[in-house]
């Protein structure tokens, strides 16, 4: 029998206390002269024997209770699980967590100081795995599967199997290194279950060596294997530390235009119980552009906005990180954020591509009507739109970044839409069906479409053709116009509507949160259409701004890879004072750039996840090189999917956070880090790989919650001793499942002993309580 906490056996000495007291009483018994012993009859002698027996039972119960408690605290374990039995017929699959969280400090860094100083959780887990493999004997079969999908054992890579080559397996295990990716234990468990065959002669067990980080287990439900398999979960090291981490990084506008002000939004989450104030530092291409303290309440998210202006076109590297924080509690200890593993999301990367200019197409419904009447033209919505776009694109000495081309609706058919990023329909009465189809294809490929209404707009056209659900992808219109007239006249200026609510989380409108919100609140809307957002799938249609009585004013709709914005009023002073306000220019600029970003979304790349790069310019005949953040070079494979060439980067290639550059052979990397594709060739892709968010989540999954999903699986949690020298994991696993039962049984026995002891003691005490009737008789006798 092995004790996990043998020091607690010292408490067993307490069992000797009742015995010592008993012997002491017997040794120091009092001898008393008494007048006669004639009254000590046989019945009294028998009663005395019974009482002595009860006292002996009482003594034994007290000793048993002390022993049981001491034994339970010492955590005895027996060889019942079977790993130590049936040597030579065991199938063992070791699941080793090699995710990023396992790179954290192991038990050696904890309070116990056990194990190798400075060893990470992964090293501890790997040593345990080696111990297990060394414990196996000839005839046993084993395999090791990592959380990131690596399989070590027998069989082909495509069809792994258990291996009898234990020495080879041990050497492979010894050479394992951790990754910075997220783990997928459920897939690993499912793979492990498939390795077992149906032979009833073999003992099967899956040993999970992991820090049991909560997020790793909840990605998907556990699969049900064919065979009932015992799964022993061995928590390694201390749980991930709750910290303040960076959760997300995004540009406010979908498209970064050179010279255009942009907003970088940084999302942070504090998983800790105390308010923290880390310093948020943002670097653009290695140059610090912002450093500000960020207050993050306990267990709450926080958002910081950093203005960014890209000076040059091309790929830019944005790195946001925490450089340190202090505990906000008065008198609290100052502590720096642990870099790297301690807070894996304390640094986050973003690759942004800035474009030199943003080609726009303004389809003005009044452009060809009454052009001679200049006064009338100056009252048209298209006039204000064009003027605002030109004004927002004028950035000093730089070239015009917002380049609106104004065409009448009739000329739309002669315009090549692919040369534009955004198309704005302004007061367009209607369009032919062919043009509507062109617009649909344009938006579906990632273009942006903005619709501004006006006096000429044919509501029936917008509702039935553009907004018809029968169209591909459900129609372009994000909302339908209701009412027989199509719009309602609100009334005089003193009864104008105002913007009451704004979706501040919308990237284009985030700039107008806070103090700048009043700039939108002062806008009066005299006339507008009553629009009703379409009841499409959730997350497909958003109301970005609403007026009094909840009337939507600005509605967004995702269509394919692009976006569609619908304004319920016309940008003309007859309808609203918006075009006369200063806010109109930045609002229109941000909305336009937001629409332009639909085709180039930031590709979310996580460490350990495979990446598909769809690119039209790949030359499939040439190898594709990938430069890792540490300078290492990998080769990606290129395959053809449909009409596009797809560069495939396997998950194991994306092994570290940072920037990856993907380039064709022959391209140069310039000194500033940007790729130079040379004349006539497209530069390579810049990827930003971040630590998976799940690896930053604190908390340990509870086995009880997993067992509810496990079905036929028998999950067992192995409690490693918290103090003292670490016994062999093999010896622990050999009996952990039964050890828990033994401890519980011992505790129950101790409880039963205490209860019975109470009963017996009460019986004995009750004999001492017969004094009342005796006193009465004594009085009478006297």
């Amino acid at each position, binding site marked *: 029998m092995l004790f996990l906490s043998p020091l607690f056996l010292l408490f067993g000495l307490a069992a000797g206390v009742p015995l010592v007291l008993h012997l002491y009483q017997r040794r120091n018994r*009092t001898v008393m002269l*008494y*007048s*006669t*012993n*004639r*009254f*000590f009859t046989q019945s009294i002698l028998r009663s005395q024997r019974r009482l002595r027996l009860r006292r002996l039972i009482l003594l034994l119960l007290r000793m048993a209770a002390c022993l049981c408690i001491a034994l339970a605290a010492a955590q005895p374990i027996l060889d019942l699980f079977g790993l130590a039995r049936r040597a030579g017929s065991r199938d063992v699959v070791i699941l080793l967590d090699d995710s990023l969280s396992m790179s954290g400090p192991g038990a050696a860094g904890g309070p116990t100081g056990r194990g190798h100083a400075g060893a990470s959780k992964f090293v501890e887990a790997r040593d345990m795995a080696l111990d297990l493999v060394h414990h196996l004997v000839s005839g046993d079969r084993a395999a090791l599967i990592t959380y990131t999908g690596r399989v070590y054992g027998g069989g082909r890579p495509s069809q792994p199997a258990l291996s009898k080559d234990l020495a080879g397996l041990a050497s492979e295990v010894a050479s394992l290194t951790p990754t910075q990716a997220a783990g997928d234990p459920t897939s690993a468990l499912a793979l492990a279950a498939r390795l077992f065959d149906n032979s009833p002669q073999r003992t099967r067990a899956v040993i999970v060596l992991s820090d049991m980080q909560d997020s790793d287990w909840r990605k998907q439900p556990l699969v049900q294997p064919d065979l009932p398999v015992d799964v022993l979960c061995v928590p390694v090291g201390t749980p991930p530390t709750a910290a303040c981490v960076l959760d997300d990084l995004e540009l406010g506008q979908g498209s970064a235009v050179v010279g255009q002000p942009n907003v970088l939004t940084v999302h942070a989450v504090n998983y800790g119980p105390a308010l923290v104030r880390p310093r948020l530092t943002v670097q653009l291409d290695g140059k610090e552009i912002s450093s500000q303290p960020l207050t993050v309440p306990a267990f709450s998210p926080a958002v910081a906005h950093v203005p960014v202006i890209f000076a040059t076109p091309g790929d830019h590297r944005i790195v946001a990180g925490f450089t340190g924080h202090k505990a906000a509690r008065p008198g609290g200890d100052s502590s720096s954020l642990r870099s790297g593993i301690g807070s894996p999301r304390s640094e986050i990367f973003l690759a942004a591509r800035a474009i030199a200019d943003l080609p726009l197409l303004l389809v003005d419904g009044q452009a060809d009507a009454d052009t001679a009447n200049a006064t009338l033209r100056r009252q048209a919505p298209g006039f204000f739109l064009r003027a605002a776009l030109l004004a927002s694109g004028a950035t000093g000495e730089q070239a015009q970044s917002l380049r609106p081309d104004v065409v009448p609706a009739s000329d739309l058919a002669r315009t090549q839409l692919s040369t534009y990023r955004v198309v704005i329909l302004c007061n367009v009465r209607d369009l032919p069906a062919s043009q509507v189809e062109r617009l649909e294809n344009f938006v579906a490929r990632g273009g942006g479409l903005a619709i501004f209404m006006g006096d000429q707009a044919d509501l029936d056209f917008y509702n039935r053709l553009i907004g018809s659900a029968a169209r591909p992808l459900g129609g372009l219109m994000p909302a339908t116009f209701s009412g027989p007239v199509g719009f309602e006249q609100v009334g005089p200026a003193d009864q104008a509507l105002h913007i009451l609510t704004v979706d501040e989380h919308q990237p284009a409108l985030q700039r107008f949160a806070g103090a700048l919100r009043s700039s939108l609140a002062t806008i009066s809307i005299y006339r507008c259409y009553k629009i009703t957002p379409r009841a499409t799938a959730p997350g497909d249609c958003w109301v970005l701004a609403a007026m009094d009585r909840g009337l939507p004013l600005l509605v967004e709709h995702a269509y394919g890879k692009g976006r569609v914005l619908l304004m319920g009023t016309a940008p003309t002073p007859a309808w609203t004072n918006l075009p006369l306000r200063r806010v109109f220019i930045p609002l229109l600029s941000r909305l336009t750039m937001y629409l332009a970003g639909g085709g180039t979304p930031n590709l979310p790349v996580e460490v350990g996840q495979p990446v598909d790069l769809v690119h039209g310019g790949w030359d499939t005949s040439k190898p594709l090189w990938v430069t890792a953040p540490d300078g290492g070079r990998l080769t990606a494979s290129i395959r053809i999917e449909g009409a596009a060439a797809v560069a495939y980067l396997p998950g194991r290639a994306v092994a570290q956070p940072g920037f990856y550059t993907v380039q064709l052979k022959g391209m140069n990397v310039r000194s500033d880090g940007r790729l130079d594709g040379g004349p006539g060739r497209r530069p390579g892709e810049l990827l930003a790989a971040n630590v998976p968010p799940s690896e930053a989540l604190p908390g340990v999954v509870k086995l009880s919650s997993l067992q509810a999903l496990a079905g036929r699986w028998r999950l067992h949690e192995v409690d490693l001793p918290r103090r003292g020298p670490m016994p062999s994991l093999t010896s622990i696993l050999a009996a952990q499942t039964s050890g828990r039962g033994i401890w519980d049984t011992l505790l129950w026995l101790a409880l039963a002993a205490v209860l019975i002891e109470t009963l017996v003691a009460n019986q004995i005490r009750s*004999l001492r309580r017969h004094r009342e009737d005796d006193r009465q008789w004594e009085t009478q006798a006297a």
Partner: protein
Amino acid sequence: MPTELLDPKLLDRLRGLPLVARRVVEGALHGLHRSPHQGLSVEFVQHRAYTPGDDPKHLDWKALARNDRYVIKQYEQETNLRAFLLLDSSRSMAWAGPQTAQVPNDKEAGGESLSPRNLTRGFDSDAASPSQRPLPAPGIDGERGRNSKYHYASVLAAALAHLLITQGDSAGLFLAADRIVRQLPPRATPSQILSICRALESAAPAGGTALPAVINTLAAAIKRKSLVIVLSDLFDDPEATLGALGRLTHTGHDVVVFQVLDRREVTFDLGLAGRGITILRDMETNAEFEAEPALVGQLVRQEVRRFLTRLDEGCRRQNVHLVRTMTDVPPETVLTRYLSWRTR
């Protein structure tokens, strides 16, 4: 009178309280008590028919003149009382409450644990040498001796002897344990009081108890009807004791038993709560009983109650006055109450 047994206050309380025999007793002197002999006295009792041989001087001539019948006048003779004080001087009478002893080795002490076998044997044995060792005499052993049952019984005996002799009766003393260890024949002289007191004071409780045998011996020795006063704790076989007392009453003796007990013997409250196991050693037999008094107390009390009840019933049936008293009750209280009750 140089004795500690006779307390002047006690004697003062007893003054005027005669100890009168309930039954006719035989005596050589004139006294307070009725005699079975009709003789020269002033108390007319009855007439009886004249029979030849009667002394003619006893003829009632007036009756002859009136009735023409020969009748003899009979008178009741008042005589003095012969009282025998039988005092139990066994070692159990020396008990004056809980007193611990050194824990000797069983072999050294010659003691033995109480067992069903030796429990009985202990009371029958008369060869237990440790029990033969006399305890210090009461009054000499300090306060503990004064509180013993023997001392209490001695005070009662001395007071009774003084009472009897001062009222003209004769009193004798028998000290007995498992046998009669000392005896003073009844005398009516004042010096007898001193003799009795000295005998009581000089004696020390020792030996076992064989009260029935002693009573039987006494019954055989007393020829004339007398008053027999037994002072003992009666810690013996109750049936044998009652049988011996019954023999005394059947032979015409007036028997009074003063059962002297310590209250703690009745309540078995030895003040040992929380002391765990205690070895109770019989003072007479040295038999030991290992017990926790707190646990067996109730059973012992029931047994004592049964014992006393048996004595009560037996004495009532044998027409024996059983006066039970505790050592914490003043002797004068016991005596005055009993004598007052007896004279009614």
